[in-house]
């Protein structure tokens, strides 16, 4: 009896591992990033770049910004732990957050209004850390957009009055 139970648990464990590996393969493939973009990335993996772009575009919509490259550059200057947390957060939004609002596909495969539902869930989440995570992503996206001179003009904001810039 004990041997049967052990065999059953072994089978269950193997099947679970295969299932999760399959899910990971299916949910973790199909990210299209140009070679040129891949070559520019220093911190983000290509799939993370795609996710950050998708999150960022919904946050700054209807405008657009180079959120992916901005976040990659910003993450370079972060302390190791902060960088790990940011990358973990990106994975959470892509894979788990959609499931929490009843949507099967990963974040980057959702329609824009579905993505907004996911972001709203994050923003208004009863768990403080989830809200805090959203606030961090929002801050990065806003930084990526509102650092641009074109954005200043659209706001009617004068921008810097000194002429020098490190960029």
């Amino acid at each position: 009896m004990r041997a049967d139970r052990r065999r059953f648990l072994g089978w269950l464990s193997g099947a679970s591992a295969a299932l999760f590996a399959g899910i990971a393969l299916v949910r973790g493939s199909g990210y299209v990033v140009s070679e040129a973009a891949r070559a520019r990335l220093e911190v983000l993996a290509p799939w993370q770049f795609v996710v950050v772009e998708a999150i960022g575009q919904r946050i700054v919509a209807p405008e657009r910004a180079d959120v992916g490259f901005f976040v990659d550059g910003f993450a370079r200057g972060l302390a190791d732990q902060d960088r790990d947390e940011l990358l973990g957060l990106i994975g959470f939004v892509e894979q788990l957050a959609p499931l929490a609002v009843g949507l099967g596909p990963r974040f980057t495969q959702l329609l824009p209004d579905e993505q907004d539902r996911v972001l709203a869930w994050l923003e208004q989440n009863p768990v403080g850390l989830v809200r805090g995570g959203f606030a961090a992503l929002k801050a990065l996206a806003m930084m990526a957009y509102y650092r641009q001179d074109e954005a200043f003009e659209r706001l009617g904001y004068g921008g810097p009055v000194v002429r020098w810039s490190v960029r």
Partner: protein
Amino acid sequence: MIERGRLLGRAQTWQADVVVVGTGAGGAMAASELSRRGVRVIALEEGPSLVPDDMTQREDEMMPKLYQDRGGRSTADLAIRVLGGRNVGGSTVHNINLCKRIPDAILELWERDHAVSGLSADELGPVFESVERDLSVSEIEPARRNANNRVLERGVTALGWRGGPLKHNRLGCQGSGFCELGCPYDAKQNAAKVLIPDALDHGARVVSDVRVTRIVHDGRRARGISGVALGADGRPIADVRVDASAVVLAGSAIGSAVLGVASALPDPFRNLGRGLHLHPGVAVAGLFDERIEGWRGIPQSYECTELLDLTPGSAHRVWITTAFAHPIGAAIMLPGFGAAHRAWMLRYPNIAVLTAMLHDESEGQVSVARDGRPRIEYVLSLSDSTALARGVRACARLLFAAGARRVLVPSTPALELSQREDIESIPDAVTRPHGMAMAAVHPMSTLRLGDDPRRAVVKSTGEHHQLSGLFVLDGSLYPTSIGGPPQIGIYTLSRHLSRFVAERVGRG
């Protein structure tokens, strides 16, 4: 000349009478005072040394340069953003230059309830005066009040509330409005402009890009520090050790506490790092018909003290002033995302912003995270969050009284009020953790002073109760919140208490 740690090629061991950790208001003043007394001083700063030409007035460029953790530091629960300076001059490089003395009521409270001696209003009065003279502190003239501050003044006048002009330490100000990103005109009469050069003139060594990791001690006496010089990428490049007869800890209420804990300072009554006050603030926006362009001109030149009663346990403990942000800061503060958020941003030139900062009685704790960085645990008590919610309602009242068409409370979800009758619908819960964006720029109280070693980390002289030769001269000292910006009080206490440091090394 300021030496740059990032240029050190190999391990260094230096000798000094006093090593000062941190070059903000407390550390720079200590370096200046001590070197003037003939004390051999080495002052160390973790951040870089910036000059006016480094200040580009761009948020994305300056935030990572001027602030700890690139401006992203927060409490452990991510509910409150905690901003602190990280460069020669510390937070005085990016602050708004507000100069409010420690109120007499607070000094009396410290003496009465916290066993603080020798720091009465009478004793500190002449020291405040000398500091204000040296830092060119003066009231901002009404003619230089910008539109955002005029909104606050208008609201205060219309409601018949208590309010008035504020004092700043600035000379030759161009009114560009970029103070929190550093001043390219060198108008701030701060630690970096006034005190560090004075210390250098009197023989002090000031070294940037050196992170102090330990206070060297034998359990009874401080003997110096050990640390690392940081390269341009922030990674350690060389060990640094300073042997000294005394150590002055002036790395802010967060940094000093972390260093104290990491150094395993004697702490028999478990006071170290505890008692943290953040003086947290929230912002409320008002939409006006006229253009406010709050980013222009001198910020925070007017205050409202109607709801600021410093009596312990008071229901009214908020200080209100203006808080305009440049676009990134404003975008982060405004609630929501996408089109709804964008709609508010497009009204940016017509928005005025007020902030309510809480004279907090909640106490948090600073400890060391696994990676060696600060872990800040702080949760507002119910009475504190209720008091802060009163501040939110007061801001809304002031904005409507000043003529706002609509008022936005940037909570989650956002509260948009179209008439003053709506103000009472703002719930007390709005200021619970994560209820609305909250920021803290005035951390205090993690190495409190007082003559009772069971309740305080350092004596009223600033010297550690158990560790001879270790002094604390920054905002960590404050036994309570002071209900306002702490910088002038830090300068003053540091000047006043530096004589005890000098005495300790035989230069009294």
